[in-house]
């Protein structure tokens, strides 16, 4: 092909043809290089947690991706376009703005029981079934909600991040194993781990939230928590119906503790994955 090898003559045809095809090759190459470069940058920018979640989110079922305002009945139909990050959601600002201010979380006690679940409204809930409760200024406790605890039951293993680890909202929080099922729990907020708890303590992580962007807008609170829990029970029922080998929650769903034990044949892997927003 090169002029000094054999008697090669460049003609218009050559220029055109080879021009086109080397452009194509270049385009393909550049595209891949760009993707690789962006990947590198993403890691530099610590965006991997966020992007992983984004990727996961795309693979969630439509029901799981419903907007919180659809669940609470404020809008008719909306699928979350922002991977549950309401902090950047313009719709949320509009919809939430029309509503009574979220205000500080209500105190514990009132109406803590709901559908047989302990859903105290003194804390904020994340769609991944964690709650966030301020312990002191800037320091938050993160725990599993009752729904999740009942689903998983006593974990066989909990793999908590070491103190000092940075967490990202919707990024990986920690992992729990129950029998052969491993569940990834999403972190509800951005911050740095400063303490490890456990099932016994009632909370799992103590986190110092980032001073900046310390907004909790993306977390569920107040009334909408209940409609969300209802939706989650509904989803669980559905998941159980398809993967639970016909198992279903009795009369409107009273969740027993450690559901896993109820039916060892059920595809808990699938059910838990569905409920904990895993792809």
């Amino acid at each position, binding site marked *: 092909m*090169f002029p*000094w*090898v*054999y008697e090669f003559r460049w003609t218009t045809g050559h220029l055109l043809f080879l021009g086109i095809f080397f452009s194509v090759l270049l385009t393909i190459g550049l595209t891949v290089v760009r993707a690789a470069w962006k990947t590198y940058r993403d890691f530099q920018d610590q965006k991997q947690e966020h992007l992983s979640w984004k990727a996961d989110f795309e693979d969630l079922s439509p029901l799981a991706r419903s907007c919180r305002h659809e669940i609470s009945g404020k809008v008719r139909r909306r699928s979350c376009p922002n991977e549950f990050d309401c902090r950047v959601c313009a719709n949320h600002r509009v919809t939430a703005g029309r509503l009574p201010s979220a205000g500080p979380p209500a105190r514990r006690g009132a109406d803590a029981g709901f559908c047989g679940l302990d859903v105290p409204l003194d804390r904020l809930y994340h769609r991944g079934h964690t709650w966030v409760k301020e312990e002191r200024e800037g320091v938050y406790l993160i725990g599993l909600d009752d729904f999740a605890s009942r689903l998983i039951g006593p974990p066989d293993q909990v793999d908590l991040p070491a103190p000092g680890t940075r967490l990202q909202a919707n990024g990986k929080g920690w992992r729990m194993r129950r029998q052969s099922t491993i569940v990834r729990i999403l972190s509800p907020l951005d911050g740095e781990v400063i303490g490890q708890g456990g099932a016994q303590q009632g909370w799992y992580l103590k986190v110092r939230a980032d001073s900046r962007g310390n907004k909790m807008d993306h977390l569920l609170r107040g009334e909408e928590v209940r409609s969300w829990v209802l939706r989650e029970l509904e989803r669980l029922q559905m998941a159980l119906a398809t993967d639970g080998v016909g198992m279903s929650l009795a009369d409107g769903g009273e969740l027993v503790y450690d559901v896993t034990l109820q039916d060892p044949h059920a595809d808990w892997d699938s059910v838990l994955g569905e409920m904990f927003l895993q792809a």
Partner: protein
Amino acid sequence: MSNRITRRNLFQLAGGSALGMLLSPVPWKLLDDSAIWTQNWSLTPKLPRGPISIRNSHCTLCPGGCGIAARCVGGHPYGLRGTGQHPVNSGFLCAVGLAGHHYAYHPLRIDAPCRFTGREEDSRLIPASLEALLSEMSGSRNSTGGSRPGGSIAILDSRPGRSVSQAYQEMLSRIPGSVYLTPPSNEESTLEEIRQISGVDGWGFDFENTHTILSFGAPLLDGWGTPGRIARRFFHRSPKELILIQAESYRSRTAVQASRWLALRPGTEAVLAMALAQVLLQDGLCPTDIPVRVADWQEFKELAFRLPIAAAAEKTGLPVSAIVEVAHALAGSSSIVLGGCDPGGGPLDRTASRAIACLNILLGNIDQPGGIISRREAPGVGLHSPRGLPLSDVADHSIRWMIIDSAASGYSFPLSLLQHKLMHDKGRIVCLSPYMTPIAAYADYIIPTPAHLESLEEVGTPPGAPASSWGLSAPLLPRTAQSVDPLDLIPKMSEALGFPGGPNTSRQELLKQRAAAIMAARQGTVFHPGKGAAVKVSTRTGTGDFWNLLLEGGCWVDDPTPPRPATRFTMLGKEQPWRERLTARLEQPGPSPDQLVLMPVGWKNATSSGSVPPMISKLFQESDCRSLAGTVLAHPDTAASAGISSEGKVRLQTRSGEMEADLKLDPALMPGVLHGAVGPCVNQAQTLRQAPAEGLLALCPVEEDGSWRITPAQMKKA
């Protein structure tokens, strides 16, 4: 400023060099050249290297006597062509001769005495030894006691007329009951009959000056005689009119080129010849002196009128008008009528040959320019006649030792012919052959002889030539150590049989004597290949020079022989044995229309009996230029009458046996006739371990008249 070279500098240098190299042609050229590396794998051979030269010699594959010019690299021939201006072949060779230099590397080359354990298909090749042969020979002497040999010994000489042939004859002349044989096929069969009719020896065809040729199946344009000579006559002198009438059942290559093709029913050659004679006589087309010169004129005339023309026309399958036209065409100008012999199909029967020879005499062709002219023998042949007994004429089961000098080249004959001549049980065949051929495989002893172009040979007068010629085939290749010169073997065999003291001259001496004899006669011209021209022998004085010139590919050609004074003829023989035979032939009823006949067809030098160069696969195997052995060609109607509608495997059956063959349909062929190709086996695929098969000839029994051209056959689907 530090001048220290750091590792970093080195890396920079290396990197920079690499980049710089990329801008130079070197890496690209190397990458490009890797293409050539993929070529130089061990599976393609290394080409020979060395000085290029041209060496002249003669081809001895058949009696054609063609001069060859070999292009050699490092002394090894790598390409052959005809010697330019050569008086015999005019610079042309046949397809087989063109690959003559490949014979030495023949995959079926025999390098030690050996034999097959039997004649069955699964027989194995085992080593034999010359000593064992000689001791069995002397054992055969002892078994009957005394000095009488145990039965007769025969030598079948595939190329009679050589000095070596004379040595054979000399040896045999001292052994009582021995016989010198020649192969059954002979391109000079017409000339042989004329010799018998006229009682005078030495005739040749004057194709160069003739106007009309009637050929009864002679493959004139497909290897007959010296192909170069025929081609020169047919194609190189286009202004000179030549009419070729080809009479044969098969649309052969000659028939394709002929001016007229007479689709003659198989076996009716004699009928056509006699019908033509009748027309000549009836229309007064015979020269006036002929009735006077023919002793048995009346008898012959009676015979010629025995069958009415119309009956003859019906028998031959030709219209009456065609017969009349041909007769007139022959009488109208100088003409030659010659009987054919398909190299595969074997010779015409002698009855037909006799009728054809008579036709020539009626036409007044004898000793006429453009007819059949006198040819004197080359000097030095004197002692023994070059003619031997045709193999078919030997009494059955009479031969104890059959020695075959080189497997028949050019012609094939059924092995059953050999078998019938051998004594029951005791008969032994010794085959002197460089290659494994079906005949060699049939032999009890196979003695390797030098391959083509490996030994000093001579070439005599080619068949049908107008003048005698003689040349040498100087070896172009070194002889292998194991090969045995037949000339060295003859005294040993003679001694083993109890007749010691044969001629003990070397081959070179023998040939030198012959050269000296020719030189002494001081006649003819000698062709100088270097000059491309011939000079009169008389102008050359030194015998040594003559010899050297012959070694360099020179060729001696005799001057034209002056016509003899009016020869007298006895058409039907002294005791007129031919009258009955011809009568029988004329009155023989034609074959029934639903009777299929099998006719073997072949090509000179590439028949099933002989050996062919490996490259011949181009013609037989890698193209359909020629039919491979075992192919049967038939008209679709012929096949349909046997209940076969498509090409493919069929079974052929004759009274000699049964065989599977490949049927090819060709509407151009005569219905009712099966043409069985007697081609060579494909050599490259063969190994010495397996005996080459005889092919379709095994189905062709030898008739009483010594021919095997036409055999009633049956065909059915395999």
